[in-house]
């Protein structure tokens, strides 16, 4: 799929935009690595509650995790549809991915609101500080991804997202899948291993 997209000749023989984007994703690994490390280092060191065991809602987060996993499936199907020039299904899958991303953000907004009502804020304890920073950064990335997908959907409706523009969708897909794999780690480290 990726080699179906034409690009200017480069010394590596690879598309520079894609190479640059993978480099960006590599730097994002370091960003989220530092955030997850900080969460783990301060885990269980809060002097006051609420603690993770008291407040985290595993069933709810399991549903939002499933939602994000399915959004990755929709994203990869959107790329396949764009690459084969199927405009209808490209729009359907792009819209589905954006909608599933928005639903995930809804779950996160509900969770954050509930936590604040239960007395857990950014400044309450070490758990609150590290939890909101880590999941907040991730949620910010999901928000950027949803906006990116909506711009692609808009371009599709303008008739400017044919197979020759598949790389644009592929880059958005790489970003979206990366956000998904980060959540796979967060779900395990923060929610399941308490």
């Amino acid at each position, binding site marked *: 799929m990726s080699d179906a997209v034409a690009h200017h000749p480069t010394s590596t023989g690879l598309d520079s935009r894609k*190479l640059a984007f993978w480099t960006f994703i590599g730097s994002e690994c370091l960003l989220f690595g530092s955030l997850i*490390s900080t969460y783990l280092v301060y885990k269980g060191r809060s002097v006051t509650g609420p603690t993770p065991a008291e407040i985290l809602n595993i069933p709810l987060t399991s549903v939002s995790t499933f939602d994000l996993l399915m959004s990755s*499936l929709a994203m990869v199907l959107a790329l396949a549809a764009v690459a084969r020039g199927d405009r209808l299904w490209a729009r359907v899958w792009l819209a589905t991915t954006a909608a599933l991303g928005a639903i995930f953000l809804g779950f996160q907004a509900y969770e954050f609101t509930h936590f604040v009502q239960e007395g857990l804020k950014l400044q309450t304890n070490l758990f609150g500080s590290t939890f909101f920073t880590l999941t907040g950064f991730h949620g910010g990335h999901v928000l950027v991804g949803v906006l990116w997908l909506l711009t692609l959907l808009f371009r599709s409706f303008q008739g400017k997202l044919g197979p020759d523009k598949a790389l644009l969708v592929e880059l958005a897909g790489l970003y979206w899948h990366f956000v998904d794999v980060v959540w796979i780690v967060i779900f395990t480290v923060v929610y399941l291993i308490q």
Partner: protein
Amino acid sequence: MNEHENAARGHATAGTYLVVAAILTVITVVEVGVYYVPSLKPVLAPTLIVLSASKFALVVMFYMHLRQDHRLFSAIFVVPLMIAVGVAIALLFLFGVLAVG
């Protein structure tokens, strides 16, 4: 490119993507199931880490196409990932969360 051409070139097809999604779903169900089994508490962390790493690898290999893409992309992703994991492990030892022996 149609499905047959994709398959012939070693690229994943829609069927492959659906199978991967099904596997990801099953692993997630197992993860949550393991969390609720009291007798598995002693091995909970290693089990969950293995399951999570499997999901991570599936998404990266099939959905991000690293399985069939140029190896330079894999290197650009894996090297910082290993540095991040190394830094995390070092910090856990440094702050006494993990200990030798």
